[in-house]
Structure formats: structure tokens, C-alpha cells
């Protein structure tokens, strides 16, 4: 995303910024940046109906610059589309104040974002991250098993499941071996054609214009499926003399995953064989961090905690500080519709970062690591010193609650 203009007061954080989204992933950034109550200004097509004096109704589409106060946002991961709904904040000739409008933010169309409450530290960080111009890592991955394949695109901030392929492959049976081989052949064929369609190798747009940008392809599977698939791709490439495919062959990495499901990507990307080959993607870093957290929690020595209340308590006690304290937080929390909720997490982050001096990692909720964190309540912390019984008091409350619930149940 290109930052065209920004007027943000360093002190109060008030001001606006104008962006030009250039890649589909920029929409994801915009989605993370735009909060309810923010003001977004962008060009929009709006249908305007006019009633003439004679009573005839004329409706026409007018291109207007609209400023809306955001009420909600809607992001479609698959297509990378962002819809921002809100109420008109600045009146113009066509639209009255307070009228509803939904802006469709588009690529290569600029928009201006103004934060009513000012840009907080997290928002500024996101802004910086969104506007980083350095080349971003991208990786296609096919996680597969017998008869099942998930084609994913892994980018710096997202893991997008592009296609899931399921082809029935008969099992081995007495006298029915043909079925298995044929089924596998058909499965490979389907997977390859689908993959090529997604990679868009033949398209002159991507590969020809930017020849340096060959996206690596990762094949992962339990057992030998990935190897067999690689062999199939090779055979197929030579048989059809598909030049782009032949060019792709050297970039293919085969890895081992324990299951054909997407979430085993975490395990694949964490494996040293892959990390050495792949650049240090945010994804890999996040995954490594989550693994570290998991090791700590398995040791069960009170140095790793998860869940909103527990983490907040740990921060209060100063356990997430210098010397190894890490706060893991999912960016889903900052997209909270509730302003107070967002403020709560921003305060926590600020406190860890500035007061305690600990490390803060905002994990993308679209990555596998972010999803692991989501299961743990979107926030976790590695402490500098062990703390026990952070959940004790809470449990008492809970048990009271439970008792109440039980009583109610009895009454019913």
C-alpha cells in the first residue's frame, strides 16, 4: 500500500492519511486499519433519484466523493474485497448527512482515513507495516494426502486457502489395484491442473513481466504422496513441454507434513529443512513463537499463560517485561467493533512495550499461528518469571457462576 499523504500529529495522534492500495493484500491491511467510528473518504458511485416538478422520477448514478463514519467493515478473504459501511459524515449536493452508504474499496483507488480518537500506537504500527515497500515473501503451498489436497497461498500476512481438492481414491483391495492407481492418477491430474490455474504461469502478465518473481512452491504430505506428485509434475512437464512449468520445477520444495489438512502447514514451516530454504517470513517467525509458547506451557512451570484475564493479570504483576517477556496478541482483537474493547488491548500492548519493556508480537489471525492463538483466546504471554494460580480467583467466580447456573437448572 502506498502512503500518499499523511498528516498525523505525533503527540495526539490526530490527523489523516491517504492510501493507494496496490495489491490484494493491501485490502487486508486496510481491513485492519479501518475501525468503526473512523472517517473514510473515497470516491463512490451513488444512485441519486430526483423528483422533478411534474412528479416524474429520474434516477442516475453519480460519482461523488463521500466521507462516511464507519459503522462496520466486511472483508472477503478469498477475493480480497473490503466493504466499508457507514453513514455519510459530510454533506454534499447529492447525499444528505446521515445517509447510509457502503464503500467498496478498490485496488488503485485512493482513500483517506481519519481516526476520530486519534491514531494509537497499534494503528501507527499497522500503518507502518502496511506501507513497507520491501518485497514481500510469497509462497504457494499444496498440503496433500491421498485424494485430498489444499492449495494455499501464503503471504506475509495471510494464508489463503485457494482451493480444496477432494478426489475419491479407492483403497487397495484384492484384485482392485487398478482402481487405486487410476484414482491417484486422476487425483494428481486434478491437483496439477487446478494448481496451474491458480499459479497463472502462462499469463504473460505475471511471469513474463516480472521474470525474477518466481513464487516458490511447497508440496507437503504425509507419506510419499508429495514425492509422487513431484514426480508426476516432472513427467507431465516434460511430456507436454510446458516451459513455465519446467521453469517452476527447481523452486519446488517437498516437505513432510503429518496430515493433509491446512493446519499442518504450521508444522511444515517450522521444520528446519524449510526455514533454511525459505526467507524469514513473518509467518515462520510467528509459527516459531507459537511453538516456543507451546513448549513452555507443556513444561507447566507457570511461565506461559493464555486467555485474556490471565494475561492481563500477568502484565499487572510485571511478569511480561524485559528479559524474555513476550506478549502474543492476535490482530483480531484490534478489529473489535467495540471501541472500549480495542482500547483495552491497545493499553495492554502499550504497557508491555513501553512500561514493562517486553516484546509484543501481533499475530495475523489469517495465519495458522494466529489461528492457534485464537483457540487460546487470542492472547497469550510468555513470562519472565513463573507465576502460579493466575486463574485461581477467576475459578472461584466461575464456580459461583456454575452454581448459579446449576440452581437455575434445578428450578427449571
Amino acid at each position, binding site marked *: 500500500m502506498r502512503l500518499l499523504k499523511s498528516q498525523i500529529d505525533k503527540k495526539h495522534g490526530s490527523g489523516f492519511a491517504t492510501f493507494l492500495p496496490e495489491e490484494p493484500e493491501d485490502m487486508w491491511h486496510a481491513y485492519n486499519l479501518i475501525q468503526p467510528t473512523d472517517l473514510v473518504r473515497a470516491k463512490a458511485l451513488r444512485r441519486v433519484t430526483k423528483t422533478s416538478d411534474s412528479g416524474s422520477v429520474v434516477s442516475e448514478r453519480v460519482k461523488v466523493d463521500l466521507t462516511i463514519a464507519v459503522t462496520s467493515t466486511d472483508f472477503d478473504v478469498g477475493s480480497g474485497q473490503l466493504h466499508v459501511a457507514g453513514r455519510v459524515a459530510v454533506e454534499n449536493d447529492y447525499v444528505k448527512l446521515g445517509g447510509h452508504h457502503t464503500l467498496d474499496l478498490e485496488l488503485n483507488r485512493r482513500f483517506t482515513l481519519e481516526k476520530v480518537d486519534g491514531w494509537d500506537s497499534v494503528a501507527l504500527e499497522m500503518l507502518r507495516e502496511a506501507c513497507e515497500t520491501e518485497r514481500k515473501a510469497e509462497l504457494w503451498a499444496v498440503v496433500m494426502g491421498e485424494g485430498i489436497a489444499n492449495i494455499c497461498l501464503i503471504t506475509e500476512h495471510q494464508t489463503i486457502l485457494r482451493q480444496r481438492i*477432494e478426489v*475419491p481414491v*479407492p*483403497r*487397495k*483391495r*484384492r484384485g*482392485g*489395484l487398478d*482402481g*487405486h*492407481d487410476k484414482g491417484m492418477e486422476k487425483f494428481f491430474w486434478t491437483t496439477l491442473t487446478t494448481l496451474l490455474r491458480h499459479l497463472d504461469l502462462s499469463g504473460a502478465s505475471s511471469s513474463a513481466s516480472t521474470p525474477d518473481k518466481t513464487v516458490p512452491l511447497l508440496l507437503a504430505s*504425509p*507419506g*510419499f504422496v508429495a514425492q*509422487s506428485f513431484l514426480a508426476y509434475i516432472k513427467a507431465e512437464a516434460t511430456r507436454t513441454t510446458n516451459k513455465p512449468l519446467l521453469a517452476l520445477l527447481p523452486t519446488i520444495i517437498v516437505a*513432510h507434513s*503429518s*496430515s493433509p*489438512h*491446512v*493446519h*499442518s502447514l*504450521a*508444522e511444515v514451516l517450522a521444520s528446519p529443512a524449510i526455514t533454511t530454504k525459505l526467507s524469514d517470513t513473518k509467518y515462520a517467525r510467528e509459527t516459531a513463537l507459537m511453538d516456543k509458547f*507451546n513448549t513452555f*506451557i*507443556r513444561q*507447566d512451570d507457570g511461565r506461559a*499463560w*493464555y*486467555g485474556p484475564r*490471565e494475561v492481563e493479570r500477568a502484565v499487572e504483576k510485571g511478569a511480561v517485561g524485559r528479559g524474555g517477556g513476550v506478549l502474543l496478541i492476535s490482530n483480531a482483537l484490534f478489529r473489535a467493533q467495540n471501541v472500549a474493547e480495542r482500547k483495552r488491548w491497545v493499553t495492554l500492548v502499550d504497557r508491555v512495550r513501553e512500561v514493562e519493556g517486553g516484546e509484543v508480537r501481533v499475530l495475523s489471525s489469517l495465519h495458522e499461528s494466529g*489461528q*492457534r492463538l485464537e*483457540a*487460546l*483466546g487470542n492472547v497469550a504471554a510468555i513470562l519472565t518469571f513463573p507465576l502460579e494460580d493466575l*486463574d485461581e480467583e477467576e*475459578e472461584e467466580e*466461575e*464456580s459461583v457462576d*456454575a452454581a448459579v447456573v446449576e440452581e437455575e437448572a434445578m428450578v427449571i
Partner: protein
Amino acid sequence: MPPKSGHHRAKNVGFDDDDGYSDDYLEEEEGDGMTDEDREQLRIGTAKAREALDSSITVSDAQIQESLWHYFYDVEKTVAYLKNKFAPTPKTTSTPSKKQKATSRFDQAASAAGVETNSTPGKQTTSHAQLGEIQESTCTAPSLKSLARQCVENVNLSDSGTSVDESSVRDKSLYPAFVDTFPTSNFFWDTPWGNVPPHRLGEITVEPLLPRGRLLGGSSKPSKLAALAAARKRKQDEAKNVASLPHEHDTRTEADTAVALLDRLSFKAKDTTGPPSIPKEAEKKPRHSRYPTRKRSPSPTPEIPKTEERPPPKSTAPAIEFPDLRAPPSIFASVLCGTSAHQPINQISEFTSFPLPYTNFPGFKDANPFANPSPDDLVLSAQAKGTKPKPAKTKKSNGEHLAAPMEKLAVDEIPRVKSKNLNVVEEFEKSGMKRMANFVVIGHVDHGKSTLMGRLLCDLKVVDQRSLDKLRKEAETIGKSSFALAWVMDQTSEERSRGVTVDIATNYFETEKTRFTILDAPGHRDFIPNMIAGASQADFAVLVIDASTNSFESGLKGQTKEHALLVRSMGVQRLVVAVNKMDTVSWSQERFEEISQQMGTFLTTASFSAKSITFIPCAGLTGENVTKKVEDPNAKWYTGETLIEALDSSEIAKRNIGKPLRLTIGDVFRGGITNPVSISGRIDAGSVQVGDIILAMPANETAAVKAIELENEPVDWAVAGQIPTLHLTDIDPVHLRSGDIVCDPKNAVKLIKSFTCKILAFEHVLPMSVEVFRGRLQAEGKVKRLVAVLNKTSGDIIKNKPRIVKPGEVARVIVELDRELPLEPGTRVVLREGGNTVAAGLLEVSI
């Protein structure tokens, strides 16, 4: 036997000795198979008729309706008829069914829907079930043509259905006269051709053409051609009347006098008259000689009674009530069917008893054709169930031998697979089958599972020497001669080239006591999903352990342990531990005992009971102590049982045969050209038989079971515990995936999205993404919440909302699935993550 090809019809007509049966069908068809429209008309008509009739006449609705039907909803005529019929003789109204039978001669001729003529309700229903199509055609358009066609078709029906034991029918059945005296040609027997009073005779010959024209939609006037034909016919008639066969003439006059006499007489005196036998003979004859003409020509005659009855002389009406007044064949009939010159005498005697069979027949009095569900309903419901109504319900005892062949005929009509409607549980108990056992072979990779099983099969001669030699040669050519035995089980090219079992191999063998199914599971950790699929089908497990140095130890850390825990958590209780490769440690007793001791401790902690574990030393490659006792001198210390003996002595848990069907699909494949969709899998509960309708979940699609194979042999049914192959029809294979559940449509499995589950943790359990395994079913999901840590033995809550569940702890968790799956409370599931088995659990409540 609905719509028939012409030649079929013609072919069968010739043999109809028991046409009376067909009349039976005809009558009930008329009565029941009405369209809604008809019914509505009938209802209105009945109401009107009731109004028109004075209250003094007691007539039942059914009777009104019946007559309405005959007069084609003409209320006036009906009323006239009814008044006619019921007013003069109060006796008839008191026993309407019997009397009416007697009166309505024309009914029989015109294939009346007879409340009273449906003498055998049982028969009626069976025939209805089979004659659905005929009924449709006839009831919607009860025109003369269709009536005629029915009659012919029914002749066919009764013919082909009963021809097998015609003779016996005639001799032994309860209503022989009924059967015999009612051939198709009898349709016209009671049309008073010959013996009507003269004042009516004139009408008869002229009128017949009129109604036909009208009914068929033409003008009421006869066409010139028709008039000409009629005129000619009349001439012929007259000519014949004057100088026809003497007996014909005689009988007519006889009959005439009889009518006159009997009018005044009581009812009982009537049936003794001789004449009725003659038409019988007349009918008999055409059957043999002139049958083909029947198809076209008889159609107009049934209508005649209608026109005739329209102006019924009120006073003479009772005369019509005599069923025995059958005239000799009319001119028309004789033209139609040929004159009867010779008649077997015995038939005459038989015929004298004709009218009685109806009234005497036991089922006749209580016959109520509308009491049972309509035949259409029967057919529909039968088709819906995919099964035919049980023969026992629908047929009467004396009709059994007739109905059975009829049912066979019906099968051809219904495209679905026919169910034999076996009581599978009983069949299973009756069959006295050997007990069946499925066992899974588990253990660490390269510990020799496949080789051991290959050896077992070879020694039991399940695999012949020739194919073994072939495998051996193939194995040698790629330098892996020791794999030859394993290749008996490992058949895919990948498995062979890599020397690793990838998927479960299934094989069968038999001992004196038991039929075994081997499920050879892969040992490699990547293929544990397949191993779980195998273990979920097993009754007990064979754990194979490599006795050679270090191998045992590495296995214990690896899949030996994991597999043992998994099979235990899948509910397997009995374990045979085969300490394999004893030849490599030269049958050292110490090694065996060391392994036994270590494994014993481990397995008992994994909650196997010590007495359900058996340790057997053996050598798969050489085959020692597999089926035959070991001969190695070093192994003298071992005197226990061989592997096969240990297998044979395994106890097998009781199967849930009586429960609703549950079958986990293990594989979906094309079973050949004739069986495009086939599935295989273990029946977890219940039973299945050929012809059953099954429901595949989660696709929620039904299918019919076309055939069942068990151990590559076709069978009629399969019960819980067996692993059959089902060949299906009426389903698209996209709806079937391995891991799906096939169940009884009436007792379907519910689809659930999340559930609480009591787990035994093998690893640390956090709220996290997991794979949920249930047999072949493999799904993504996540542990949503840790509810509580429980006491291992008592199940009491130790800690609510734990932060983490440590290995070995028992906990209650909530698992949420990515998509809805067919899981039931009580199912055993395995949770895995990142290639490790995290926990095994028992599904408690679906949420």
C-alpha cells in the same frame, strides 16, 4: 402383469382353465382403482341417489355407489335400478350382499365392482399389488374396450400365474366351481340372449350398438354401416332362431318357462335347473379354438346389460335374480366363440353347483374390499420401503401356492432390487455359522507385521505356492527377497517399491473354529490414520514386536506404544503379542522374557488386563511357531501355543446385531461393470440384506443394496462384526466417501458440529486444532474448551476449567468440528495433532 405385448397376451389365452380367478381380479379392480375425480362424482351421485330414493328402501352407500358406477354416474338410472332391486323383496335388503350377488348377473358380466363378489380379500390385495398398472388404465377409463382388455389381460395373469398347478387348483381349492365356471368368455354368459322374455328379446338384438356409440363419444345414432351390420345380424339371428341347433332352442324355451315359474317360486328352487350348464360348455369351447378373436370382438357385449336394464320392468325384475338361468350361447356369442357341438359331461355336472360357491364361500360374507388399504397405497408403500409387503400378511392361506408365483411375476415389474425380507437375526442364528473375528495386526514399522501375516496365509494354504514363488521371484529381481511374504499383503506398487505398508490390507482365513479377517495395519507413523481405520474394525489385536536387539526398544518409543494405546482406546481388549524374529536372537528365552516383562508392565498401565494379553514367540520369515510348533533346538523351553492357536482361543465380544444398521464406509470403489458403485466397511451394529434401502450420511442420500459380498462370496445378508462389500444402486458415488456412515433410513445418525468428549490425554491438550478420527472418518476440528479434569477411576471433577491437560490425565473437553459429521454418543474418537496422537476419547453428548 400390466401392459402386455400382444403376443404374450395371445400366447397365454389358450390355457385359461381357471378364468374365474381372473374375474375376481376384474371386479375388485373396478371397485378400488378409482381416480379422485371418480370418487368425488361418486360421492355426489350417492347423495343425490339417496335423496331420490324414498326412505322405505334401505340401501347401503356401497350399493348405491356400485350401481352408480355401473350407470356411469347416471343418478336416474341408478335410482330406478335400486328401487327395482330393493323395493319389492325386503328379503334382499336384509341380506344385501348375498342377494345382490344373485341379482346382479349383469354385474359379473360387466365386471362389476363387487362388494359382494370380492370373495377373497386376501387374493384381492395381492393381485392389486401386482396389477397396479392395469388398475390405473382400467379405472380411469372404464370403457368397454378397457374392460375387454382387462378381461384378456386377467386371463393372462391367472394363466401364467397359476398354470403351474392348475389342475391342483381345480381339484383341491376351496372354490373349485368358482374357479372353473368363470372363464373370461363367461362375461357374456348371463346376458339374456336366449332366455329372456320375448318382449325384451326384440330390444336386445337391436339395441346393442346404441350405447357403444354414445359411450365412445360418437353420436347416439348408429352409423349407417353399423345399422347395416345390425340388420344383417338380426337376420342371421332370426335365421338361427328359427333353424338353429336344437339344444339352443330348447334351452331357451325351457329357460323361459323356468323364469316364469320361478318368479313365483321361492328362491331355493332355482338353481336346480339344467340349462345353465350349457353356456358353460359354450365358453369352454372357444378357449381352445377361437381365442384370438376375443381380443377384438367381445368388447361391445358387456355393455348390453346396461341398455337392457335401463327400462327394467318392475314386476319382472325378480326374475333376473336367478343366477342359474344362464342361456345357451347367444347367436352373438356363438358367432364370437364358435358353436359348442361337443361338451365334456363332467363339466356339466360341475356347473350345476355354480351359483353356490359365491354365497357359500366363507370369505364372501365378510368380504369388504375397502377395509384394507387401497392397492395403490400398498404398492407405493412397498416401493417406498423397497420391500414388498410380507406375503403372510397379504394372502390367505389357501391362496398361497397361487400367490407365490404371482409375486415372482411382480418382481419383473419393479425395477428396484427385491428384498427377501429375511429376518436376518434369525437367519444368522439359524445359519450356525462359525464365529467370526476380525483382528488388526499392529506394531512398529519394519517389525514384520505383513511378513508374519503373509506367512500365516501361506501356511494355511490361503495363498498357493505358485503365486508365492512368483512374488519371491519378483522380490529377488529388485533385491528385496525378504519382502516376498509381505507382498502377499502389500500389493500396490508404491508399497512394494518402498517396502512399507501404506494402507490396511484385508485378507481372510479359516480355522476349525473361526473365520478370521486379517487387517494388516501400516506401522509407519505417517499412516497411523490408516491404522486407526483398521483398528476400528477389529475385535482384537495382534501386536507384533521385533525381538532383535534395539528394534524392540526403538519400537517401544515409537509406534509399538502408540499403536497399543490406540487400539486400547478404540475399545480393543484382547491383545496377542507376537514376539517376532525370534530366529535372529536364536530363540533366546531371556530375550523373550525381558520383552514379555517390559511389555506386560506397559500394557497393564495402558489398562489392558493381564489375563487378556498372550505372549507368543515366533519367527514370521521362517514360519516357526506360527502355525506349526517350533523345531529349533534352542526353543525347547517354549511349550506354549502357536500363534494360530492363540488367535483361535480369543474371546470375541458380543455383537449388536439387533440394533439399527451402522456401517462405516472404509472404501468406495467401482466393483466392476455390473456394480459401478460399491462400498466396503465394517458393520458396527445391526444387519443389512439385499434389497434394503440404506442412507449415507452426511450426504443424506439413500441407496438400494443390490448385492452383498462377504469374503468375495455373494451372500444375502450381513450382520454386525462382518466386513462386507455392498454393491449399491440408485446413488451417485459422489455422495459416498470413506469415513461416511451408512445407516438405516428410519434410524438415521444425526449430524453434529460439536460435542463434549471424555478424553484420555496422551500428550498435552490445550485448546487447539486437532484432527478427529473415527475409523476411516478423518476431520478437522478443534478443542474448543477444556471443561474439567476428571478423576481417572471415579470420573469426579478434580479441576474445573484447567489451563492444560497433561498426558495421562482424563478430562472432559468440548470439541468443535469444521463441518457437520455423523457421530453418535458413545463413539470412540481419536484426537491427533501434528502427527501425534493427542488423546483418545469417548463422545459423551453432542451439542
